[in-house]
């Protein structure tokens, strides 16, 4: 009986994901679509949990649903109201061709996937990870992969985030801040922010031996920043000018520094000395969290903050 119930749950989850995706993409009003997308993200997080991927579930809920949702909604808010813009429908042959091609692609991909599972199964990297886990300095295999075995990839990912941030900053000034909110939101934010910060710290620390880690913690910290911004604070609680730039770069920077430093003993890039591994990983994660948070909040602002161009600490009127 229990087994059947779980299967039913999984099928319901799958059906919900499909319906939400279709509804989000083809809804009439864009705002509805975005909200449906947020719900889609949350249901996806449930799916990750069912597939035994708790770290991914945390990240999906926080980043994929939370931050992405906030970004999309903010973008929608700033859109100038279109004057009478009924999008002209694409000619039918275009729609049909693309649809058929995509269906063909999907079928080919499915066939390839099933074939690979059936005929080409080989030794899994996961087994290797489990075997070497004790040497990696942390007990959570996902953290071990991210910050030790494949640390190079994570370094590049931080670089990508930094590049996106630079792009956003270069594209223009920040969005106008929402007006100062009423007492309900202000008081909510007042105690929510410290709670978010503490929870972010907890997630960061616990990532060594349980689901969690730098990305989830960074996303929570970014959420704290976003929430402060939504309550109308024009400075968003961020440290001014130089500091925030240093924070954003520090994620990549500290990572590289540790990697290069580890080369000084004659080892390869990012090959940590064995007994320092845990400490080094924590060090990198701390700065990565701060950098991720800083980057995400800046990106949510949508551009260069006002206080930068006026030379630093002048408060906006």
């Amino acid at each position: 009986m229990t087994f059947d119930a779980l299967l039913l749950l999984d099928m319901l989850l799958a059906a919900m994901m499909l319906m939400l995706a279709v509804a989000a993409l083809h809804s009439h009003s864009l705002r509805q679509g975005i909200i449906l997308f947020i719900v889609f993200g949350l249901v996806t997080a449930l799916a990750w949990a069912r597939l035994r991927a708790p770290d991914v579930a945390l990240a999906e809920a926080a980043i994929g649903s939370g931050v992405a949702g906030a970004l999309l909604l903010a973008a929608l808010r700033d859109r100038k109201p279109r004057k009478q813009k009924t999008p002209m429908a694409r000619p039918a042959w275009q729609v049909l061709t693309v649809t058929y091609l995509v269906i063909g692609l999907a079928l080919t991909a499915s066939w390839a996937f099933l074939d690979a599972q059936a005929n080409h199964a080989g030794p899994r990297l996961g087994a290797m990870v489990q075997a070497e886990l004790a040497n990696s300095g942390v007990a959570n295999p996902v953290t071990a992969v991210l910050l030790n075995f494949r640390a190079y990839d994570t370094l590049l990912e931080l670089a990508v985030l930094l590049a996106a941030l630079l792009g956003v900053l270069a594209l223009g000034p920040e969005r106008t801040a929402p007006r100062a909110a009423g007492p309900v939101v202000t008081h909510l934010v007042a105690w929510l922010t410290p709670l978010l910060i503490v929870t972010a710290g907890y997630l960061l620390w616990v990532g060594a031996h349980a689901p969690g880690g730098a990305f989830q913690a960074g996303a929570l910290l970014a959420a704290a920043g976003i929430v402060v911004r939504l309550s109308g604070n024009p400075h968003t609680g961020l440290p001014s000018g130089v500091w925030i730039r240093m924070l954003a770069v520090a994620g990549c920077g500290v990572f590289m520094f540790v990697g290069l430093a580890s080369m000084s003993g004659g080892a390869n890039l990012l090959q940590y000395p064995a007994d320092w591994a845990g400490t080094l990983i924590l060090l990198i994660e701390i700065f990565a969290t701060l950098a991720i948070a800083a980057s995400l909040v800046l990106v949510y602002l949508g551009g260069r903050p006002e206080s930068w161009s006026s030379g630093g600490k002048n408060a906006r009127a």
Partner: protein
Amino acid sequence: MIDLLSAGLIVGGLFFYVAGTVGLIRLPDTLSRLHAVTKADNLGLGLLVFGLLLQLSDPLSMLKVLLIWVLVLAASAAGGQLIARHLQHKREESS
């Protein structure tokens, strides 16, 4: 025995959720839907949480689960108030 109580609480919570969702679909206007969703869902979550609490053994996990309930309560209360206030603004503008 504890399992039975736990299951009962969880089912009760689910019942409230269903009630809230039915209200969301069937009630005529936004304000009453808001009422249905916040009251029923929060209570439903509370029952669910207490049902789960009975299954846990260490106090830290119990604290975390309780914290989830409190946070959802606060968030939905704030959200509900914001939606209602927005509605009121809209009404004032159009009248």
